[in-house]
């Protein structure tokens, strides 16, 4: 096995570019998934079947099909319908949508974990529905689910390389480009593999610290 340090140092500038794009996807994708997931979770609580059934079916479908094929779908089908976004925007939206179907279940569990007495108190105080949600239920529910949401951010980090398939140059995309130009596959791929382990390990440490602070 040949290991060439000069290939590593040649790759580093591209690595930083890729890392920046990866983190960008991660932050924007997380924000979309947090927001959309909350919307799904709230829609699932609307008391008519006409809302819960379609929302449940669509999210179930998105959750059980591969993100990669969803990326292809959005990347190739949307332009056919006359909607064009950059590859990065499409990718961020797809990953956010995919993970919102997971975060919705986290929110659901969080909302269900709010003690029923809180609902009763809100009714007793004659709070309107909107105030009940924004001032009583959601602040307590969201606090409980932060660690679980964090786990999905880490999962999402590991799915960001998929965006390479729709030409986004994130870490893996940069590594592949560099490898093909220089015929050195070992170093760039190992560097980014290592980077993923380090980032997700640091993130899980940070998450554990956050969890401890929220619990106490």
């Amino acid at each position, binding site marked *: 096995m040949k290991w060439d340090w000069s290939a590593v140092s040649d790759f580093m500038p591209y690595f930083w570019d890729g890392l920046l794009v990866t983190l960008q996807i991660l932050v924007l994708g997380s924000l979309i998934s947090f927001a959309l997931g909350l919307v799904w979770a709230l829609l699932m609580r609307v008391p008519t079947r006409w809302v819960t059934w379609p929302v449940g079916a669509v999210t179930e479908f998105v959750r059980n099909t591969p993100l990669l094929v969803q990326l292809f779908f959005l990347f190739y089908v949307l332009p056919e319908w006359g909607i064009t976004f950059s590859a990065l925007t499409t990718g961020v939206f797809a990953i956010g949508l995919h993970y919102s179907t997971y975060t919705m279940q986290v929110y659901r569990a969080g909302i269900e974990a709010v003690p029923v007495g809180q609902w009763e108190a809100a009714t007793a105080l004659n709070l309107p529905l909107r105030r009940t949600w924004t001032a009583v239920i959601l602040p307590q529910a969201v606090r409980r689910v932060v660690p679980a949401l964090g786990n999905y951010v880490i999962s999402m980090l590991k799915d960001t*390389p998929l965006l390479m398939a729709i030409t986004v140059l994130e870490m893996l995309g940069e590594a592949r480009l560099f490898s093909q130009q220089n015929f050195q596959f070992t170093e760039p791929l190992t560097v980014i593999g290592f980077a993923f382990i380090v980032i997700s390990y640091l993130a899980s440490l940070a998450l554990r610290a956050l969890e401890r602070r929220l619990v106490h």
Partner: protein
Amino acid sequence: MTSGLWELVLHGVWVTIQLLVLSSLLATAVSFVVGVARTHRLWIVRFLAGFYTEVFRGTSALVMIFWVFFVLPPAFGWQLVPLWAGTLALGLTYGAYGAEIVRGALAAVDPAQREGGIALSFTPWQRMKLILLPQAVPEMIPPFSNLLIELLKGTALVSIMGMGDLAFSGNLVRLALQESAEIYTYILLIYFVIAFLLTRSMRGLEKKLKAGVGKAPKKKTAAVRVPEGSGVS
């Protein structure tokens, strides 16, 4: 779509199923070996098993696939057939997630059961085989079912390496027809049907296993991915 193109898609389904079966077998083997090793009495065995799970859960499955396809051949001088390379990368990665499930389920068995085994002077291996695993395995089925769906979704990644699975056949049909909405809708539907069948059969398996230890399955299991941070999974 012509019948020739459908044949292409069917062949893709076949490759995906082959890959799914092989890599889920490897992942199951890895999960049990590593998960049981994490409860071993020697610290070095526990440490190595923990290290394995951290490394393979820490990295991305797609990066792993690239690594097996591009780094292993020059490094060790042998090249795997794509099907086996895909199986290896997916089985090792998802096996690390499965190991956490096994460890969590073993830890969740009532401690009195283990103590009972010690009191009856069972060897550690007998305790594992006769007492802990029969009670822990039914509890593992719901999280394993979710992991199996994740693995099914993961098999699509090999299409990036040019392996002719279902996702790849979708790309070929798109290129042939210059039209993508229809074919990708079909591909997504096929994946969904496979996932649906898998979930159903895993639920049947759970029912059967739980009946074997005299328990009834829970009414409804939420499909949540294995938690990755701390805590019992």
